[in-house]
């Protein structure tokens, strides 16, 4: 297999593309051009490498989860520790790349959308680092759920803009960020937080996150002398998954497994499993799988994890699903919570609720595989931000 996507217009098979208002078209063409040049420039890559190493703390470790492996009694489980990055999640890999690109393009202001607040924090962080003005759009509902991250962003000097339109969650934050961008497109760079949005965002976010899979591949080679049998990651928009999957895409022996949020259960209709239970449509600048009704109106997503609470998915995942290069499954809120506790107690690692979805799938999968098999799972973030949510779910009241 020689995988070559997207095409020059940003399509992954029938998905992706650039479905935006005319006002934004020139900005996207300019961004595409600037990125094409940056991608060829060794100096740009050196700059990214420098900040990833000295600022983010890369490479992140690949950790053999021995006690979890023994408990489950099957395949060996390796955790890619993105939770140990500066700011506590994989999101910063992307914001470092995009802010350096914004600087190259001479932009002075950045905006971002955020759900869990991780991408907002990662954007506010690099904006502080480079002295740029930063505004973060966040749904009212998410501001309530993720108050800790809201305060972190404010400490970092960002302005957090409360979004009350629609369902007041991530999709609406993205709508308002796009509306703001339409109005301020001449001097503002929009830092999108996942492999979604109009071309070239799915491409450049994938590129910036691919450091996850590149490192993991090499680290596993050193530890085990082989490729993993399965690579597992949770799917919100799909950036941590794309970053893990992409460097393995031509290694057909490696199964790529994306884990969506099943919320209360796919059958209840209250979930965020766009690939497992959605249908193709167009939202936020790209064609992809969406949760929508028969009339093409976007439906509410539900997940206990704010970072997965999105009714769409990056277009490349839609394509990988259709060509069957990757498989997509879903786990419920309860399964994710159970996995959260199990990883915490067995390994002393408190995962983000997003990442706990990937762990939950590993808990199901590992016992079905032999001890000679290897599962590589992306631990996309740490769980400090979710402590209140977890406590609430256990009926514990924190001050």
């Amino acid at each position, binding site marked *: 297999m020689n995988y070559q996507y997207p095409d020059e217009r940003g399509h992954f098979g029938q998905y992706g*593309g650039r479905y*935006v*208002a005319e006002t934004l078209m020139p900005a996207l063409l300019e961004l595409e051009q600037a990125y094409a040049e940056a991608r060829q420039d060794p100096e740009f890559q050196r700059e990214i490498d420098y900040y990833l190493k000295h600022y983010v703390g890369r490479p992140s470790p690949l950790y053999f989860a021995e006690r979890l492996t023994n408990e489950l009694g099957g395949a060996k489980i390796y955790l890619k520790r993105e939770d140990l990055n500066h700011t506590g999640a994989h999101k910063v890999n992307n914001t470092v790349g995009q802010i350096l690109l914004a600087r190259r393009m001479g932009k002075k202001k950045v905006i971002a959308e955020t759900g869990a607040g991780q991408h907002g924090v990662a954007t506010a962080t690099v904006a502080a680092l480079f002295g740029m003005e930063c505004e973060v759009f966040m749904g009212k509902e998410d501001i309530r759920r993720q108050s800790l991250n809201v305060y972190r962003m404010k400490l970092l000097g960002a302005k957090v803009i409360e979004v009350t339109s629609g369902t007041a969650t991530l999709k609406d934050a993205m709508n308002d960020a796009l509306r703001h961008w*339409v*109005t301020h497109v001449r001097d503002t760079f929009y830092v999108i937080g996942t492999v979604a949005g109009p071309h070239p965002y799915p491409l450049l976010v994938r590129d910036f996150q691919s450091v996850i899979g590149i490192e993991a591949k090499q680290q596993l080679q050193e530890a085990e002398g082989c490729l993993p049998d399965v690579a597992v990651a949770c799917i919100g928009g799909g950036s941590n998954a794309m970053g893990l999957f992409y460097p393995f895409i031509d290694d057909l022996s490696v199964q790529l497994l994306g884990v969506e949020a099943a919320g209360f259960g796919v059958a209840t209709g209250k979930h965020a499993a766009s690939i497992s239970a959605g249908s193709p449509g167009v939202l936020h600048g790209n064609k992809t799988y969406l949760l929508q009704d028969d009339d093409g109106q976007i439906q509410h997503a539900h997940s206990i994890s704010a970072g997965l609470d999105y009714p769409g998915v990056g277009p490349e995942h839609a394509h990988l699903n259709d060509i069957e290069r990757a498989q997509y499954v879903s786990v419920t809120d309860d399964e994710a919570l159970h996995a959260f506790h199990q990883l915490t107690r067995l390994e002393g690692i408190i995962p983000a609720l997003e990442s706990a979805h990937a762990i939950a799938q590993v808990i199901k999968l590992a016992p079905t595989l032999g001890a000679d098999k290897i599962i590589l799972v992306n631990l996309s973030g740490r769980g400090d931000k979710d402590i209140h949510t977890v406590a609430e779910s256990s009926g514990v009241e924190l001050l």
Partner: protein
Amino acid sequence: MATMSRIEATFAALRQRQETALIPFITAGDPDLKVAAEIILTLVDAGADLIELGVPFSDPMADGPTIQASSERALAAGTTLSGVLQLVAEVRKKTAVPLILMGYYNPVFCYGVERFVRDAVAAGVDGLLLVDLPPEEAAEISPLLHESGVALITLLAPTTPRERMQRLAAVAEGYLYYVSMTGVTGGQKISPEDIRLAVDDLKGMTNVPVGVGFGITTVADACAVGTFADGVVVGSALVKIIEKYGKSEELLPEVAKFVAELKGGLTALTS
């Protein structure tokens, strides 16, 4: 030569009278589809030359708060794309005014592109304006529309580079829609002088009329733009009246009054 479309015939007649087209925008289904039918006929009686009918969408990313709220009201009232097409079919029995559906691509895509084009033609739709479907992505629908004589209206913006304008303006159908400011609908104050420069330039690049919209809210705005544009689109200001009067008895008289004022201002420009 093929017979003139309703859009072409309307602009040709206006040109003869040296008049600028008044193009009101309303959201189909706000406050509901039944009242929307009455609003459309009221608009025609008060002097509307063409009408843009918004197809409500849950995520109207190019719209400001006024049209977002209007979309939400229409959806809450149960409006669907097939309901909008029925509305068009119904008012088409009573008026020949060109009706342009305006909205976002997803409802059309989910309806099924072929089925949509067939049903739109049958209902009497004259044009389609999809805010988030730039020409680069339009290949799956534009040939079907073209064959059926439904114009796919092209939007151009202040940020559009001149070379791109030339390319898109040369192949435009129906009329060109120039977005009067860098922003969402119902945005901040417009600058008629900047718009004039762009529109004058644009007119040299195309055979179709040039309409201007986004941010035209008063009779004075409409007249300022009407001195050089072939058409002016008034959306949010009208939608605000619909929001204010809802299903009350004052609704239709208030709509008629506002539109008559706009039309009066525009016709006074020629005399």
